[in-house]
């Protein structure tokens, strides 16, 4: 008990006297301060009314550092999402328009919310890709289950799934409308407007192919 070490009786109050602030007639009557406040209010009123009426209001994405009305009038006006925004998924295309996906199930395995369902299919007999890779017969993402963590994109070994569409899922009115099938996912372009990616893909038979194929295993 630290209190027992203190002497009994009223303690000496240690404090610094703070003088009352000087209140001149300007403060006492309150009128000059009212005038100042009104001036600020009116400045905002006139400037914003003028800019709204003459169509000069700030662009909320470009001129947001300026004073004035910076509100985004959503949904009439939409700020673009930032570059790293993880939006709706897309399945990237190969040069021939087929999906890059080889149905390896890495993404559905990595998915923490288990919202990806892949049904793998074999290429037909005689197809040069047969035996090396498969293709997704069905590729389904439940966008309502998805937590937009981006693990599927990280897990993908062939850059086949991306979240760079810059879109958010549209607000539908029933749950089954959020089930995105393969063709829909392949129908979204990336932000640059293309369906492919910049990463090269070397098909068996291409001159750039590293050379390991069924006839030359080593």
């Amino acid at each position, binding site marked *: 008990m630290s209190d027992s070490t203190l002497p009994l009786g009223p303690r000496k109050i240690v404090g610094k006297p703070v003088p009352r602030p000087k209140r001149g007639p300007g403060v006492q009557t309150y*009128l000059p301060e*009212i005038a100042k*406040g*009104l001036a*600020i*209010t*009116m400045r*905002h*009123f*006139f400037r*914003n*009314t*003028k*800019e*709204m009426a*003459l*169509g*000069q209001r*700030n*662009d*909320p*994405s*470009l*001129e*947001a*550092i*300026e*004073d*004035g*009305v*910076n*509100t*985004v*009038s959503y*949904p*009439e*006006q*939409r*700020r*673009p*999402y*930032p*570059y*790293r925004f993880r939006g709706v998924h897309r399945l990237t295309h190969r040069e021939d328009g087929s999906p890059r996906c080889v149905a390896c199930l890495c993404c559905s395995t990595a998915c923490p919310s288990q919202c990806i369902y892949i049904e793998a299919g074999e290429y037909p007999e005689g197809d040069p890709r047969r035996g090396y890779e498969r293709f997704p017969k069905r590729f389904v993402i439940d966008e309502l289950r998805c937590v937009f963590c981006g693990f599927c994109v990280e897990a993908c070994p062939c850059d086949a799934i991306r979240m760079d569409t*810059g879109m958010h899922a549209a607000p539908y009115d029933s749950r089954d409308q959020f089930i995105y099938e393969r063709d829909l996912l392949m129908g979204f372009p990336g*932000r640059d407007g293309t369906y492919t990616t910049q990463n090269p893909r070397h098909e068996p038979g291409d001159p750039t192919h590293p050379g390991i194929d069924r006839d030359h295993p080593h």
Partner: protein
Amino acid sequence: MNMDWVEFGLSAAKAFAVVMFAMNVAVLLTWADRRQGAMIQDRVGPNRAVAWIPTKVAQALAVLPALGVAAALPAYVKLRGAELTGSAEVGAALAVSQLAIFWVWMTALVIAGRVARRGVRNSFDAFLAGLGDPRRIFYFGIGAHAVSLALGAYYRGTETGDALTSVGLYGGAAVFAFAVLFGAGYAAYSIRNEPRIGLRLVGLLHPAADGLKTLFKEDFIPPRADRLLHSLAPLIAFFPALVVLAVVPFGDTLCFGVDESGSIQLTELMPVVPATGVCTEGAVPLGVLDLNVGVLYFFALAGTGIVGAALAGWASDNKFSLLGGLRAASQMVSYEVTMGLTLIGAFMIYGTLQVDDMIRWQAENAWGIFVQPFAFVMFFAAAVAESKRIPFDLPEGESEIVAGYFTEYSGMKFAMFFFSEYIAVVTSSALIAAVFLGGWHLPFVNRAGIEIAIGETVFFSQQLPHLLVVLLGVVGFVGKTILLCWLQLTIRWTLPRFRYDQLMKLGWRKLLPASLVNILATGLLVLLVQNADPRVEKALGTAGDLTMALVAIAGLFAFVRLVLFLLEPTTKRRLLATSTAQFAAAMGGTPTSRMQA
């Protein structure tokens, strides 16, 4: 009192006009309050609703009135121009030529503004854009006004002057007609390729929707409340707020001719009336009531509003309501005292209680704000407190007592309390405008026309038609009232709420003694002036004219400043630090699309 049917009809029409004025301005104030709040807080505000007009209809709306106006003025000048002689002709030429000049530069400015925003599309656009800064058009217009006025004044009375008068009258009418038609035609032409024209209602539908909503909402009365008093209270609060404007005239007295029996002939409006005095026969004052107790009627009825608030608090069976009612009653009683006492100084100077005569005194001498400046400030503060609005909204302080005396009200009864507050803003603004800002009087405009004179020196004098003078006065009164309403709204958006003891201290220990001192000082001054040399009185008259000049110059300056402010080009700094901004810049700005639904 024998009142014939004409007078009865006129009184009914005036009463209707005053009530409609108060209610409509109050509705507009509820809108302006929201709109202004948004603008002050840098928000967009209610801006969604758009009325879509088919392009053809929009074009017709632009062109048809323009055709009407463009046809009417030249036709009037052509028909009546020959009848006008002497001073009346000069006056008409002055009005028409200034109107024409104004319309030309205004049209050019509006089109130049459009061009600056949407780019050059045709050769006329290119011509306007070639003029450079749109402010040059404004300077040119101001210059044209000044030059035409100077020329008219210089050549007045000479043969050149007569020629200039004809040029001003006929040429002005032609130029005006052309400018109106050109502006409307240009607008119609430039929208020809639009599929439809959207008219932003900027939240104007909101008050209408609110009115409808309150009509259909449940009318709740607490089970243990006093049903009769609970229903009566909103009426008692609403009714006085509406009828107090009866004693405030909204325009100068109109003079009509009379027939043999002495009854008014409404078709025989006097063309021109003398500068001083009011016609004894055939006078139609533009106020509902011409009571000799004047302002006392205003205070008596405004005081009745207290009963409404107190009753509402008492009858609601709710402790918050009761507290609110108590606060409202004591606050309104306190400030009623100050309101009355601050005006006594004004009564002593004007020597009358009738608002009409007060305005006449101000027209002849100086506006009340110059003879009673302290009374103006105190009366304004007391009037804001009387309407129970921020910063004096203790009776409904939502952080302390829910909603005060109207906690237990819903639907239209709540709306009546809400609405009576806004009507109180309008009526108090109208009274302040009448008692301190000269009511319907405009500087240098008397009953005969315009006369710019300081002391004995007359700089400019021009007769104007009686109807035009009265109409100018009505517009001036409405303008002053709306300006004061706007000032009250601005105060509401600026000041924080007082504490209740501060409110009472301000009322009883500051405003009340100050108003008593004001009475004493005014009395001494009035005595001094009455016993002073005639030269002092003359000097005071000149000083009064100088205040008029001050008001006129301030008004002109404010107008010029406003136009220049609107024309000021805006430069905005862009910041492309984020990828969002870079994407937006690549798209040419944040993408905006019209609402689909």
